[in-house]
């Protein structure tokens, strides 16, 4: 029995369509990532799965229980951390944890083992009010609160948004440890680079899943040749590359531009690469480097959403 089993979920808010028919299943004990930009439907999906909303169409089963019929059972079994860390700002760190423990009819002591890893990092500040914590600390406290009743499945809606890279990394390390304790984790994020940290991911845009697979399989399915191009004048380089006939797409990727090219049947990748190099030299670029690379999740996401790009 999968931990989460979803079939054909649809949801509208008036005229706005949030989910256009989503199906997937997450296995017990895996980290399942739902990755997509803001407004793609991640929060709506999480709210349906945590019984806060009722879908217009489709079914969802969480830990063996239907989200509509058996919502009371599900509420006992899942932990939920909404996007805005939902804490009582005027309660202290410790009071928050105590409160959420009592809401779930348990005590901090009973499940301390489970949250120890995370909570011990913020325990020195346990008398501080939650409203006065930094983003990273709020995130840890909210996660501790969502875990205190030992849920079978943990739903984390954008736990890393607005949090600095160090805290983000720490959070992912914590998730990995929780997974090892057998907890199923569904996590959403707009950061593509976090995809690799999940066992399986679903790419979501405009209420639709573009692809569901392991991160490695998704990048393996990328059927384009892709190069990283560097030079001194990155901005001019971008427009010059785009003007090159064989180039299909060219996007800025930090220190390099990622370029996909059209290759004819018999054309070798090297020859295209060489032609582009010569062309760029001819255009007056210096220090040009072109390198064949393996695509990342972000390349795949853009390839899959290419049709929508303005």
């Amino acid at each position, binding site marked *: 029995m999968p931990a989460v089993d979803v079939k054909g979920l649809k949801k509208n808010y008036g005229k706005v369509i949030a989910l256009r028919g989503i199906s997937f299943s997450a296995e017990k004990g895996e980290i399942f990532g739902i990755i997509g930009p803001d407004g793609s439907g991640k929060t709506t999906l999480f709210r349906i799965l945590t019984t*806060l909303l009722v879908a217009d169409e489709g079914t969802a089963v969480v830990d063996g229980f239907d989200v509509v019929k058996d919502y009371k059972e599900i*509420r006992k079994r899942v932990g939920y951390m*909404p996007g*805005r860390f*939902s804490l*009582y700002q005027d309660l202290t760190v410790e009071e928050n944890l105590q409160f959420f423990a009592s809401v779930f*009819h348990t005590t901090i002591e009973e499940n301390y083992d489970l949250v120890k890893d995370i909570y011990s990092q913020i325990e020195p500040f346990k008398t501080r009010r939650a409203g006065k914590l930094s983003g990273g600390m709020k995130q840890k406290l909210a996660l501790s*609160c*969502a875990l205190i009743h030992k849920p079978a499945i943990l739903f984390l809606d954008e736990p890393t948004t607005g949090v600095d890279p160090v805290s983000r990394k720490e959070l992912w390390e914590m998730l990995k440890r929780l997974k090892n304790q057998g907890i199923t984790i569904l996590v959403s994020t707009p950061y593509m680079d976090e995809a690799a940290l999940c066992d399986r991911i679903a790419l979501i845009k405009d209420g639709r899943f573009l692809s569901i697979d392991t991160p490695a399989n998704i990048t393996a399915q990328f059927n384009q040749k892709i190069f990283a191009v560097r030079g001194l004048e990155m901005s001019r380089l971008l427009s010059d590359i785009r003007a090159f006939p064989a180039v299909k797409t060219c996007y800025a990727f930090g220190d390099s531009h990622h370029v996909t090219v059209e290759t004819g049947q018999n054309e070798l990748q090297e020859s295209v690469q060489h032609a582009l190099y010569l062309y760029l030299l001819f255009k007056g670029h210096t220090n040009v480097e072109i390198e064949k690379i393996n695509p990342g999740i972000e390349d795949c996401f853009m390839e899959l959403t290419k049709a929508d790009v303005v």
Partner: protein
Amino acid sequence: MMILLGMPVIQIILFGFAITTEVKNAEIAVLDLSKDEATRKIVEAIEVSEYFHVAEYVHNTKDIDNVFRKGRIGLAIVFSENFYENLLHTGKAQIQLIADATDPNTATTLTNYATAIINNYQRQIVATGPVPYQIVPEVKLMYNPQMKGAYNFVPGVLGMILMLICAMMTSVAIVREKEMGTMEVLLVSPMKPIIIILSKAVPYFAISAVNLATVLLLAVFVLKVPVMGSLFWLILVSLLFIFVSLSIGIMVSTLTSKQMIAYLISGMVFMIPVMLLSGMIYPVENMPAILQWISHIIPAKWYIAAVKDLMIKGLGVQAVLKEITILFAMAAVITAISVKKFKNRLE
């Protein structure tokens, strides 16, 4: 937007009609022990004036007490026996004006109008007769002989404070959870919605009970407004009113998910009508029928009336049975609506 555009209209209408200390068609009682030509003329003059309407003719002094207890009558006029005879023979006659002074302003206005009408009659007969006749109105103030304003505003303040704390604070407290996102987490927990509501309402219930005690103590010991009737029933009725206000607060919280809106609704839609239409500042009797009708659905109106009866007039619980019943019904209806509307999901 509706609130911003609508409020000035409602307010100007309310103030325009409600802020009038003028009295029109006040209901009075007449005890005519003489029943002669003069008393008939005076009563006639009173009846045709736009200020009074004789609602009841009573037959003895004990009945006066009874009609006052019913609370409808603001003034009673008592003609002594052999009124006309006394007037003709001794040139002097006595009229007693008994006013319900729980609201000192209205009492003053009523007695002034009545005196003016009587003086008018006096001038007429003086003009016809040879002797300088003199009608001496004797004013007697029931319940509040010293005409203390406190007698009027203590019940009003009670109604306001309890309404403010219960309705506004409860609604804001619940809506705050929605805004902070903590409501989401609470809903995804085994906690029953009814427990969430109760845990929000109980503290404010306790605070209101303390407020009630403070206001009563201050009233009795500082303002020297005695509790004339049963303290037990006064407290019981107050607790009932607190309950009604709490359920209003919960109902408001189910309507919105923004703290600002909760403040606006409780402030504009509940507080202002409570102040204007509950009879706390302006007597409801003088308002147009439509406003009087609206005032009936304001819980504070019934509560304030009950407090006046129990605390100031010292009446027994049977005098406020009607108010208690109405408050009970309101509590039941509002609680039912809000519990039903308080969803265990987000939308």
